[in-house]
């Protein structure tokens, strides 16, 4: 295993983290879109906001991490991807901008029309962003990105069976993970009604994810033979089986209302799809064009990236665990009163 492989594995940890945490954020936006009119959807929407409010920005940084590591460790493949796929990447970028800002702005809008406008923008871009990022993944996976400056087909590279499949899979998987996570939040808050609401949706989205993933095998066989071959290799098959098993177990647990464990398996199902892709494609970054070792940056740069990753593990992981545990315990947020020792309580005592 070369140092370049290690960096690729680090990048894939970032992709996985973005896939599940960022993915769940997108999924929350998707459920926001389908929550119904302002009256009917109010409870659902405010639950979704409580669930992702404190964490969405941190979850989002994984994407920057992945991009930066990719261009530093594998600059030529990175520019090949970025220039050939600039259309779906620009659309995803627009989605990211609209989503993040609309979410932040909606909180501060005090008229119904503006709230609905920002809300609709947030929710719609939550569907479009994972879809376009999925088409990018499909384009790379099916070997449609040649090396060079915008050398690939600007349209057919991402409008093809594998890309459409990957885009759809991304959307349903985000919806599935989000519903499973939010069902857990609702149940922890003691709201059986909302837990039930998201449980039904998690089951539906979970089945849909399974169906799209299964259909994917047929599509890949016809449209991305190289990846199909890798996936059905000795390393690929076990990972696919893990994904399928994790998906089925999570559905079974959801049906038994074991939300806490169910969400873990839901995330595992998604992560194993991502690792299956990586294994299926290895040792190619770009199918038939660029291998990991031949296109990696020099050793000095890769060592620098390992140092940066060590810094991230030391500083970011503990902070992130603290953030998640505070969110989990309901310490962060505006509902549920004040602790006497808090800054808010002090401000009130001062007549704030």
């Amino acid at each position: 295993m070369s140092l370049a492989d290690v960096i690729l594995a680090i990048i894939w940890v970032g992709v996985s983290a973005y896939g599940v945490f960022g993915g769940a954020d997108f999924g929350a936006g998707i459920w926001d879109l389908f929550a119904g009119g302002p009256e009917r959807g109010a409870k659902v929407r405010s639950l979704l906001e409580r669930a992702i409010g404190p964490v969405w920005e941190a979850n989002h940084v994984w994407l920057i991490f992945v991009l930066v590591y990719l261009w530093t460790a594998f600059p030529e493949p990175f520019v090949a991807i970025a220039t050939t796929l600039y259309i779906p990447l620009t659309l995803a970028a627009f989605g990211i901008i609209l989503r993040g800002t609309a979410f932040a702005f909606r909180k501060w809008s005090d008229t119904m029309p503006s709230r609905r406008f920002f809300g609709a923008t947030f929710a719609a871009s939550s569907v479009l962003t994972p879809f376009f990022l999925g088409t990018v993944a499909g384009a790379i996976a099916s070997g449609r990105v040649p090396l060079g400056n915008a050398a690939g087909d600007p349209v057919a590279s991402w409008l093809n069976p594998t890309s459409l499949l990957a885009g759809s899979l991304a959307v349903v998987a985000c919806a599935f993970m989000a519903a499973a996570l939010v069902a857990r939040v609702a149940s922890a808050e003691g709201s059986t009604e909302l837990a039930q609401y998201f449980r039904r949706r998690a089951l539906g989205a979970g089945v849909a994810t399974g169906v799209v993933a299964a259909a994917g095998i047929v599509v890949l066989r016809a449209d991305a033979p190289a990846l199909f071959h890798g996936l059905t290799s000795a390393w690929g098959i076990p990972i696919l089986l893990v994904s399928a098993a994790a998906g089925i177990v999570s559905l079974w647990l959801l049906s038994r209302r074991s939300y806490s464990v169910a969400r873990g398996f839901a995330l595992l199902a998604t992560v194993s799809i991502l690792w299956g892709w990586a294994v299926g494609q290895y040792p190619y970054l770009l199918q038939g064009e660029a291998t990991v070792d031949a296109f990696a940056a020099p050793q000095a740069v890769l060592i620098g990236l390992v140092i940066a990753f060590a810094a991230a593990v030391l500083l970011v992981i503990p902070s992130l665990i603290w953030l998640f545990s505070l969110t989990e315990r309901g310490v962060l947020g505006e509902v549920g009163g004040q602790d006497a020792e808090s800054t808010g309580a002090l401000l009130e005592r001062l007549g704030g």
Partner: protein
Amino acid sequence: MDMVLVVATSQANLFAARYQMATSLGFHIMLAAAGVAFPFITLLAHRRGLRHKDRDALRLAKRWSKVMAVLFAVGAVSGTIISFEMGMLWPGMMGPFGDVIGLPFALEGVAFFVEAIFIAIYLYGWNRLPARTHYRTLYPIVVSGFVGSFFIVSANAWMNSPAGFTLTAGEVTNIDPWAAMLNSATGVQYVHMLLAAYMLTGFTIAGVYAVGRLKGRTDRLHRLGFIIPFVVASIAAPLQVVVGDVASRRLIEAQPAKFAAMELLPETIAGAPMTLGGLLVDGEVRGAIEIPGLASFLATRDFGAVVPGLDAVPADERPPANIVHWSFQLMVALGTGLLALSAWFAFIWWRKRDVPQGVWFWRFASLAGIGAITALEAGWVTTEVGRQPWIVQGVVRTADAVTAAEGIVVTAAAITGLYLVLGVATLAVLRRMSRRFAAGEDVATPYGPEVAP
């Protein structure tokens, strides 16, 4: 004929790519500056609130944390777009040199991650976290602002002073990412940007409270809301003069064409004048006020010294001098104005231990934010346009770095539209927040059905 068409398309593409990058960076840089400096200004208010049981200071910290959160959200996503654009628009730089300058971006990623996590905890921690813990979450936010901006600025400094690699027959070899990061421009450019960020943020927040003052809001909260950020910016302003002087002096060696364009010097001469205003037309300076020897003096501390003019580099390596000259002068003029305003405040405070009472001070102060934002943008125009035609000084031309993908004109137009809408929406939301603060509604209402009046 075909050749002409290809050249015309690639020219349009180059222009569109530069325009798109300038728009994205120009937009993001304001929010990045706020992301760096706002937490410290909030920390000062919060600290005062805790130490002196100062209700108004604590209320300010709470309000500012909410403003900071909105700005941070817009800054985070607009920054993400730039990491997309680096590859989408400039493959000729990122392909050969992505590994050379990638490391500081990776390290900045760590700093940004820490910042994003603790901003979330600080923002959402008002009600449940113990007060001391809550206050301390501001420390990592402030520190990661300092550290993160160092890494990002080092990457830009590398474009001005490339280091950490050897070019052998067109191949990039001997890459040392640490030497690339710590190139000779990094130090001074970093301090210059850091001070600019504190000036922009401090003067902008103070400017908002100055407007409030002009509307008759003279209560203690508004007074404090003006003083804290204004004093921070006022400390940065004189330091910036010193740093700016160091920055421009090193250009004579590192980027003589940029220096010549800033000072509008067509020819290399002894005793170069400082040129105020003016335009370079057909190689001659027209309509300028010239102060003899001053450019030479500022650059070398010698009125008679020879300083490089635009003719020091071949004609096809010269930046568009008029844009560089005017943006540079705009930056210096606004910086000087802000320094004068700071001195005005300091003088009155020294004599009377109070803020100035005259309406003209508050009128100027209410424009300080716009002035600081414009100065920072003008400074970026100076350094970026002043480096042209290079994207990496002396190594890669911008025209050779641009994407071959067609249709950048479309994405450039779309991003302009998007940023216009986003800019207007951001201002509208900030205005609404300010109104709600004024009405005494500090708490954000969760969205949902509108409460019937």
